[in-house]
């Protein structure tokens, strides 16, 4: 048990992120970033990849009390490399004190993280870069209107896939890609489970090396639901087992929440416009069963390990 965050009342009561950003109401990504930031603190530099969060800092305003560098869509981890290396050089040469040092955090969406940014991410892991890689995963190119990305789940409708079947592929396992390369730390989180999130960020903060956090980011505009349902959908993502909360440390994956019993996936799917074609005009039993089967198969491997 994490000594800092045992109960909800242990969560930070002062919030670092300013209000009034251009982000959408009910944004699950913003919720996660806000919670992460409260634990990380202001001595951070966010190195941003093109995505929804790029609109957080629009000249001349920023909601961050710390620093910010926007890079491009494909190379935020390389920007983090440059900043980290420069800070280390400055410290080594006595041109900066240890107290002036910063935590370097990549802030990226799934569009970059699951696709265009993979090469730069892979390079940063190879080099053992000391950074936190924070992906808010809204399962599509959200900033441009929810086109299909490498993080889009099977059967979902997106702005570029309105076929009866929806997206044919399956959500890429970014967590597995990272952990296959033995990073210092990796975890999945969700803003709707703030205690679990705070514990993981707190742990990540205390470790050096490549550390990855993927936050599933319920997205009212992209997923097709009213903003007030974001937390409910987040909780269902966990209860159905669709979004397993887990962490990787010292070569081992641990599930931090094991839902028992698991809520049927359709409870999660039916709340979202992107899956409406699985229920209307008639139920697509086969597709719903296929998705349920995928989730069940995942948890069977977890139970077998457990």
């Amino acid at each position, binding site marked *: 048990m994490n000594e800092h965050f045992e109960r909800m009342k242990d969560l930070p009561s002062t919030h670092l992120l300013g209000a009034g950003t251009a982000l959408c109401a009910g944004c699950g990504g913003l919720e996660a970033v806000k919670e992460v930031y409260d634990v990380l603190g202001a*001595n951070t530099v966010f190195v941003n990849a093109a995505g929804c969060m790029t609109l957080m800092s629009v000249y001349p305003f920023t909601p961050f009390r710390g*620093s910010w*560098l926007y*890079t491009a869509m494909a190379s935020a981890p390389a*920007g983090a*490399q440059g900043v980290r290396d420069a800070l280390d*050089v400055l410290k080594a040469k006595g041109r900066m004190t240890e107290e002036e040092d910063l935590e370097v955090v990549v802030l990226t969406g799934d569009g970059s993280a699951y696709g265009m940014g993979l090469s730069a991410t892979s*390079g940063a892991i190879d080099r053992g870069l000391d950074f936190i890689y924070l992906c808010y995963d809204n399962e599509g190119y959200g900033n441009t209107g929810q086109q299909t990305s490498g993080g889009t789940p099977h059967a979902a409708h997106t702005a570029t896939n309105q076929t009866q079947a929806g997206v044919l592929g399956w959500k890429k396992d970014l967590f597995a890609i990272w952990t296959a390369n033995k990073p210092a730390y990796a975890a999945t989180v969700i803003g709707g489970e703030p205690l679990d999130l705070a514990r993981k960020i707190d742990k990540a903060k205390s470790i050096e090396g490549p550390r990855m956090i993927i936050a599933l980011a319920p997205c009212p505009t992209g997923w097709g639901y009213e903003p007030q349902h974001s937390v409910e959908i987040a909780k269902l993502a966990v209860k159905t087992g669709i979004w397993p909360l887990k962490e990787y440390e010292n070569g081992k994956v641990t599930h931090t929440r094991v839902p028992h019993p698991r809520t049927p996936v359709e409870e999660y799917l039916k709340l979202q416009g992107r899956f409406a074609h699985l229920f209307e005009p008639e139920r697509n039993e086969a597709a719903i069963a296929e998705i349920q089967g995928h989730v069940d198969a995942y948890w069977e491997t977890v139970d077998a390990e457990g």
Partner: protein
Amino acid sequence: MTAQSKTGQPTTRRLMTGNAAAAWGARLADIDYIPAFPITPQTEIIEALSRWVGEGALDARMTMMESEHSMITAAGAAAATGVRVFTATSSQGLLYGMEMLYTVAGWRAPFVLVNVSRGLAAPITLEPDHNDIMAARDSGFLQIHCATAQEVLDQMLIAYRLGEDARVRLPVIVNLDGFYLSFTREPVDLPEKQAVDAFLPPFDPGPTRFRAGKPVSQAVAVLGGAPYSYFRYEVELAARAALPVYDEAAGDFADRFGRRHDAVEAYRSEDAEVVFVMIGSFATKAKEAVDRLRDAGTAAGLVRPVLLRPFPEAKLRAALIGKKAVVVIDQNLSIGKGGVLHGEIASALYGHTGAPGALLSFIGGLGGRDIGADEFFEMARLAAEAAESGEIPPPRLLYTGNELREMRKLQAIAHVEHAEAGEAS
């Protein structure tokens, strides 16, 4: 060997390649950080730096990146954090990083990038021309084009001083031609470290750097055309300000080291009637041709832009006004238009009193193709003819009958091989 330069500064003269001169320039500039990625014909530079870092001769950190796109991102990010950065690439690499060239120039993060020019695919080749560097023309990086190994070393030092100047604060590309300059050994005077330190003070990043307790937001988004235009115009004004700053730096360099590197080099052009305009190491071929043409009775000269961005328009105009004919030889090809430099020279001259009556365009030296003395003679003849008749010939692609015959032979072999392969299957 130790010698005394014209100003009494002790120097060491060594034989070194253009690549080695670039590496020495970086070393003498006391760089802090080298994000790197290999590509022919540049690789020798980063290997030399890596060796020095390993030996402890250079107190810098070197990080191998996984692409030039990442390399230029890391270079800009480190410069934005307040260290002196060097990096190098070539050709396909420069184009792979193109998005970030524009981006980091907009960050106003000064560093030096050496580009060893090489032709672009397709077809893929290793030998030099200037299409790679011309593609970076509008990026916001300043551009210095070198013709000799000595220039490469000297311009490295001038480039850091220029880019880091508070009136400029822009990244700079120092360009040298692959093979002809990168791999050719020439005698180079290595200045003393103390003299370099006096010319080039440590990088002062000012308030634009990342430190705990002093938050800054860099490279943030803007909404709307007015703020966007404001920041883009600022980059343009900084680049324009770089013209006098370059003169100042090059002047100080000449005073300290005895070597002048004017923004525009004029070779025997003062009394010339026909003037060649070229950039890079191939301009040394033009110098040789100028001497031979003069021996043969033609008043020829050469004008070579050393600084290409910012464009030294007034200096070029001063050098070319009053000439009968100007021959621009472009070692690049803007497909469907012709030579890039030709258009730039035309824009500097058009409408000005005394502008040359004949401005001719030739494309040559693509993919390392030689430009022969006979071709310089022919270009000078055509230029004089055009000045006389007032009829300007269309842009011409240099290619000899002999080259075409050799190409036909290759094609004949290809046809035979193809036919035989067809029979075999």
